[in-house]
């Protein structure tokens, strides 16, 4: 006495966001049914448990079949298998590529390799995000990284163009890619207080000002790598510490810029010499890859 087979296929594939989110979050069918029940799905249309179970199964199957297409979102628009309304397509893609910042924080700066994938168990335990969801997010990182790694032009636009994501999500991916590429160390205890968003902001700044693409607009190179020459030139900054005049001039210029813009202005002004020295020390060492990786640790420790 059992339902051997139970399918529902519509000419138009209708995606229910609520169920999609449950699937993305890595819930099993049974858990998803439970959750939907708690959310009052049963009161709609006088449904019974069986109905909910069957509906959830159907949708999960659809998502699984769509998943293949979501690997390269541009395919979704011109595949023939499912007729999905445009707004649903956008939603499918955006949600699929959305990630938990807690999760991203854990893998930020790590090599997006099979090795790291093995750590996902621990990350799942630590963050409370289902392993299935962790895997999806990690695979997304890898996929995006692989595609844009070698591409020329602005990183955010590349991500946006290739994966049809919103700008804000593309920026977050740019940060992940940027960190993974430069392998910035973010896992140390001292850096734990910084959130993904903090790092994403830094990544944005670095991409805008320090990368090859940023320095030379004409040179259509990549946004992913830090500009070597620029880092080399940073050596010259030593004069700002060594030369008293320049130091003062630097101080006055910085203070002029920052006045009334930051809360700790007086502290900064008082400590300017020490701060400047620490920063410039870090800057001058950035020629070594090792030091680049430790950039954030150094900033926190010595800054």
């Amino acid at each position, binding site marked *: 006495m059992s339902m051997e087979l139970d399918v529902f296929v519509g000419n138009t594939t209708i995606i229910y966001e609520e169920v999609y989110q449950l699937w993305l979050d890595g819930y099993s069918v049974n858990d998803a049914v439970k959750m939907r029940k708690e959310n009052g799905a049963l009161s709609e249309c006088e449904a019974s448990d069986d109905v909910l179970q069957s509906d959830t199964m159907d949708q999960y199957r*659809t998502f699984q079949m769509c998943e293949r297409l979501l690997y390269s979102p541009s395919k979704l628009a011109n595949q023939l298998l499912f*007729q999905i309304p445009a707004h649903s397509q956008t939603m499918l893609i955006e949600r699929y590529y959305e990630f938990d910042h807690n999760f991203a924080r854990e893998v930020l700066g790590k090599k997006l390799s099979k090795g790291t994938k093995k750590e996902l168990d621990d990350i799942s335990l630590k963050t409370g995000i289902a392993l299935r969801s962790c895997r999806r997010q990690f695979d997304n990182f890898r996929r995006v990284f692989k595609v844009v790694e070698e591409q020329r032009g602005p990183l955010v636009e590349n991500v946006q163009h290739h994966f049809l994501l919103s700008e804000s999500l593309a920026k977050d991916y740019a940060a992940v890619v940027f960190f993974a590429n430069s392998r910035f160390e973010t896992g140390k205890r001292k850096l734990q207080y910084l959130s993904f968003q903090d790092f994403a902001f830094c990544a944005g700044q670095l991409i805008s000002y320090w990368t090859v693409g940023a320095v030379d607009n004409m040179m259509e190179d990549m946004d992913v790598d830090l500009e070597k020459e620029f880092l080399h030139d940073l050596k010259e900054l030593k004069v700002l510490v060594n030369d008293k005049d320049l130091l003062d001039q630097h101080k006055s210029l910085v203070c002029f810029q920052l006045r009334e813009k930051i809360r700790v202005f007086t502290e900064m002004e008082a400590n300017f010499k020490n701060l400047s020295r620490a920063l410039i020390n870090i800057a001058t060492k950035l020629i070594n890859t090792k030091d680049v990786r430790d950039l954030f640790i150094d900033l926190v420790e010595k800054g």
Partner: protein
Amino acid sequence: MPGKLKAKIVAGRHLPVMDRASDLTDAFVEVKFGNTTFKTDVCPKSLNPQWNSEWFKFEVDDEDLQDEPLQITVLDHDTYSANDAIGKVYIDIDPLLCSEAATVISGWFPIYDTIHGIRGEINVLVKVDLFNDLNRFRQSSCGVKFFCTTSVPRCYRAVLVHGFVEELVVNEDPEYQWIDRIRTPRASNEARQRLISLMSGELQRKIGLKVLEMGGNAVVGYLQCFDLEGESGLVVRAIGTACTLDKISNTHTSASATNPCNSSPSKDMKEAGFGEETPGVPLSSGPPTPLRAQTFSSFSPSKSYSRQSSSSDTELSLTPKTGMGSGGSAGKEAGPLKALLRQQTQSALEQREFPFFTLTSFPPGFLLHVGGVVSARSVKLLDRIHNPDEPETRDAWWEEIRQEIKSHAKALGCHAVVGYSESTSICEEVCILSASGTAAILSSRFMQDGTLDTEHRFEDLMPPGCGFCHIPYDELNMPFPAQLTYCHCCRRYKVPDVLFTTIDLPTEANITGKGCLIQARLCRTKKKAQGEGNATAISNLLPFLEYELHTQLMNKLKLRSMNALFGLRIQISVGENMLLGLASATGVYLTALPSPGGIQIAGKAPSDITYEQHISNMQKKINDTIVRNKELYEINPPELVEEVIGSPIPEPRQRSRLFRSHSESSDEVSELDLSHGKKDAFVLEIDDTDAVEDIHSLLTDAPTPPGFYSCNTEIMPGIYNWTSALQMFTSVRVFRLSNVNVTNQGLNKVFNDLCENLLKSLYFKLRSMVPCCLCHLNFTVAVPEDELIQVAVTAVAMSFDKEQSLENGRQIVDKTLMKAITENEEQLQFPLELTAESSSSAFCSAKGLSEVSGPLPSARAPSVDYSSFTDRCSSWIEQLRLKAHTIRRGSIKTMSSLEKASPLPEGRSRSLRSNRSYAGGSVAVVKMTPLSFLPGTKIIKYLGIINMFFIRETTSLREEGGVSGFLHSFIAEVFAMVRAHVAALGGNAVVSYSMKECVFMENPNKNQAQCLINVSGDAVIFVRESEIEAATPQPHSASAHTSSSGEGT
């Protein structure tokens, strides 16, 4: 050599990786038609190859053009080993052969493999150049248009309805040939797909020839079916209604231009037929041109299949006398028969051996009276050996059944059968053949023979909206006991107390309230048996099964306080150890018919007090349900001064047992006319187990959730303001029975629950479209294996506007009404003209028509019927006003509870917004619906019939997500392939879509499964009505509109 087929392979995309080493594919394409094959160059190392091939040209006979599909195979080139096939595309080029349909096939087609499913897409261009001049070409059956739609297609006008056409073709099933043991599953599947494609083409061509012979130019209500008879072979059969259609949307001048071409050749042919013997001979083998003789001689032995395949009666099939079974011998001695036929053609009445019509809705004025449902079944043993020279057994079987149907119709005083359909159910070597239809009297207007209507009594002064309910049979000499009353509308003619039909509700019918889906479900165990014993057992069970289904239907109808069934379809499916019966219909309250009485329960042993209590409880429940249903379906019939005011609670004294007394109906046949005497209340005896079951099933039918309606007819009676939101879907369930409950009752409950739960599931899934109606709910049941029950449903959910202001609603309804009426007038005008000079030259009449029709729409002399039409019109509007009131009331009542649940307004606005961006997407939206129309749109062109057959097999069932995953993706693939073909023809929708066959077999132990699906429909181009009305359509509005199929999220 009448045609040159040209194909060009443009490009591929999303191809699968065939070379693991490089993660790429070296693809090339083989294009095959008949025995000719061309190849493209290899496009190395690409998953998105650009071939841009030259035009491959095939010079072929028109016979082949009709029979053969164009076969495109995509392969991976391999230097050292055999090339690997990626997949295939079969393109039916029939639509290109009709000048009015598509002119080019161009687009992306999914590359399909029977083992792996869809593997990438290929862009193909196909054209046909016809060598011969138009006139001669039209004499082959190429020009005949086919429609699945069971009504006159929307942009055509029926000039004449000629009648029934049928044909069947038999072959050996490749799956059962010895060679199947050594070839791969893929090769076997492809052989089968190809064979069925060939057979359908052949069938269509032969039917086309019959149509031409009858003087028609189209087949409407074309219904093609497969019988997979296993070892005894494969039967492809089709029935349809031959018509002469005329395009409406064209300007009248162009109509007159095409007319001569359409009708004159057939006219010529007829004359030839009447003439001397010599021209008569080539006639019987096809149109009398030397060209045809050539093609005839190449009735090729080269084609391996044609050795086996054979039509029912090749020679005979060309005669206007359709369906003459007993072919073989008759065909061989065609001479005397032809002489006979000539006589028959003269007497048009006799010509119509089977006055059957596969149509379910008709031009107004065509359907005069409806007698009731007629059906016939017979159980046959499939014979193992198939002598290709004697394929007539199948024909004889159907012939027998059709005769039966015809005599039933006669018994009901009717001369025609409408809404006619045929079906089979096969289990091992036993086959149940069924046919059913609705006995009716038709107006002679659309038929050539004017003889019939002399018998006709109330031809004139037909009161609108109730005429078809009036009994066609003699009151004093009734074929069955029925309770007659005077019609509640016109009070002049007698009407029966209930009316069962297989057709759609006529547009002019007056109804009260809304309709609903009514199903009777039944499961009966049967002992396992072999051969003749099995057949006997089944035929003994059948009458009981039908009787009980009928009882159930009647009870459920009463419970809903309704008095008529439309679209009745009874399906009986046979398995090894059980018989399944499923009857579906749409119940309505016809205003013309008397109000139904209640249902009364009677106990046999009234002594017991608890028992009495039990009964009275049940009685109360039933009465409550009736009251509730009346409210739900808004059935408030005008309180007439009728003697029969059915008190739902009849006095307990009435305890007649007439209900069980009718079972001695003839064995293979049931006329669904079981009556119930003069009582206004239906009496159920509770003592026998059957009655308990009946009551149980009565009460277990859950009402549809608020906001939902359901019906199995085209549209829901009582709902008018459809929005454009629609969702066509297919749902399949297979239930495995355990050994425990093999009792009848247990089985019944299982089956009943299966159907009920399926419906519940559908409501839940479509909740975002509320308020909506599930239309054309088409259930098919099967017993694929010993303990499996399979139920498949295809239907469309359509939203309607509840909130729409009364003003608006009325306007729209009025407008469509007016439009319908004006169209009717136009439609009627022609036949009137034609019948006047029916026997004279069609050419002349066509010319005459064009003259008349020029000034037709505006300044036209009022026709005879005009006044009655306006009458009807105004009374309609009056009635609709009433209806609009009730609709509004209903909406107020339920809206508060719905507001939260339904995200529709928001969803809709969103989809509107995003439409524009979607239009930019590369895949055109193709709508699909089982109905013959799309609400809010006008179909401007029919592009041809879609008739596709697919097999999918897997040997890695678990990896594909089990049986559900396997079937889910297969159905999605079938949809995708249908959409792609329609889009390539230049269409944006499929109407009258149906899934004819879904045969699913599994072997979980071997990790294998196989499924066969056959779908059909009409590819069309539609435009929004709003666009037609707007004088200046915006440039991109068309695409934006067509892409709005996604509403309802």
